[in-house]
């Protein structure tokens, strides 16, 4: 793609949670290609093989911190590390998330609290601990700093036996609007927008489909993919790079008047 490597994020620092896989990794790769320096976090230990291989491939402009988005002390540590290493942060992608499916009466309170702690607490805590640095760094560029919260189309519409995930992603959608208004009214130079992917070809999707197969919803995960693709007007799954392109747009000066908005990237799924 000709647009890659145009370095439109030169001079910026980005933090991406859940950056080792799927949409998060694609965002990391895109931001690096655009000239940004990137710190990524995930649950994996810093000395694990996957971290070693990924970071060797990503190169010098990327660095890793092992952190659990549900833990406030981990966010404090991550923000301190970014501050120490770069002194600033312009872009925060609150991407780390997990899923949970099942009939509502069968969900344990423990599993409900777990998904909320990752998908909702994680977005809140990341925002809370990066806002002071991003408010300062936002003076560097037109449109200011940019927080990109990864919600889902499941934060817009409900789905059978997806209630907990629906609730968590709906929370992300409105949390984003709340902080967008708060920053705008205080003239804090941070924009905040939510991304709403449809079905994206990621490890999380594959694992989720496999669990549905195990639960007897389908014979094989290919059947689930086919049914999703068949119900999507564009007729395919999204690629992580397409979500990264959207995150890049929201991170760049091109979206300088966009805040409190939802960017739905679902191949027309929710238009029907």
């Amino acid at each position: 793609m000709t647009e890659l490597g145009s370095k439109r994020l030169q001079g910026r620092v980005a933090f991406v949670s859940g950056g080792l896989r799927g949409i998060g990794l694609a965002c990391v790769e895109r931001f690096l290609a655009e000239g940004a320096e990137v710190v990524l976090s995930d649950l994996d230990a810093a000395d694990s093989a996957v971290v070693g291989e990924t970071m060797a491939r990503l190169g010098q402009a990327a660095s890793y911190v092992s952190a659990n988005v549900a833990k406030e002390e981990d966010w404090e540590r991550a923000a301190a590390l970014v501050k120490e290493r770069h002194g600033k942060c312009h872009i925060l992608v609150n991407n780390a998330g997990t899923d949970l499916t099942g009939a509502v009466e069968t969900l344990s309170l423990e599993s409900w609290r777990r998904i909320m702690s990752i998908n909702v607490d994680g977005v809140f805590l990341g925002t809370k601990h990066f806002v002071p640095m991003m408010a300062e760094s936002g003076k560097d560029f037109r449109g200011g700093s940019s927080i990109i919260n990864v919600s889902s189309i499941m934060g817009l519409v409900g789905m059978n036996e997806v209630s907990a995930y629906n609730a968590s992603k709906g929370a992300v959608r409105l949390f984003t609007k709340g902080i967008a208004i708060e920053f705008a009214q205080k003239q804090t130079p941070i924009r905040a927008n939510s991304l709403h992917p449809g079905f994206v070809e990621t490890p999380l999707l594959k694992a989720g489909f496999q669990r549905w197969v195990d639960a007897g919803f389908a014979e094989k995960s290919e059947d689930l993919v086919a049914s999703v693709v068949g119900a999507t007007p564009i007729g395919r799954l999204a690629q992580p790079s397409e979500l990264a392109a959207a995150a890049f747009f929201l991170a760049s000066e091109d979206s300088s008047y966009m805040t409190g908005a939802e960017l739905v990237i679902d191949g027309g799924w929710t238009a029907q």
Partner: protein
Amino acid sequence: MAKRLEGKVALVTGGTTGIGAAAVRRLAEEGATVFFTGSKEEPAAALCAETGAHFRKHRVQDAAAWPALIDDIIATGGRLDAVFANAGIEAGDGSIETVEIEGWDNIIAVNQTGVMLTVQNAILGMKRNPEGATGSIIINSSMNATRPLGNYVAYSVSKAAVCALAKSAAVHCGGQGYKIRVNAILPGVVETPLIQNIMNAQPDPAAARAMYEGMAPLKRMAQLNEISGLVAYLASDEAGFISGAEIAIDGATTAGMMGV
């Protein structure tokens, strides 16, 4: 500037001034061959000289003239990839009690029927691309689609209607197997020449400006080039999985309650 639209051919309706002219500039900067329509010949000539774009005098509501326009674009540009259905008016509008049938009909003709004709003819043109039906159609709606104005009933209704039109067309194109995407953008208050004229015509222009700036939590109006960034992104292949979407670009105006 990255050239994301090299080799693509674009059409902007209502392209002589304001948001449309800014889109013409940006799409041309991104490498596209740009055609634009409208009625104001003087600014059109200047914009052609500045950007290398091509002007065609055409009114979007003129159904009979559409096929020849599309033929002309394809004959000259070779194909059609991106269409920004931007032309719109609000002159002659009023509240539900005061709007007269002539004003209502004019606004619906341009903002609603004109957009329908633009999308319909865009699809017909895009189906003629050698590799099959491909392209991106972007409809310029308004935040007033979701937050209607009491004193602009026809405008508000027409802007809501084209959001449904975008979704219907997106679902249709998907169902037909076309790789044609259709989306609506919903700008807040943009500092267009039209708004500048309205402000300057007030007894207290500074107060009028403060009122418009205060509508968004961001406490300013959008600049023209802040809308064209979104248009360029949606026109590009980067937005290949976005279709049937309504995208607010309003400085958080519709993220909360108006005026709070």
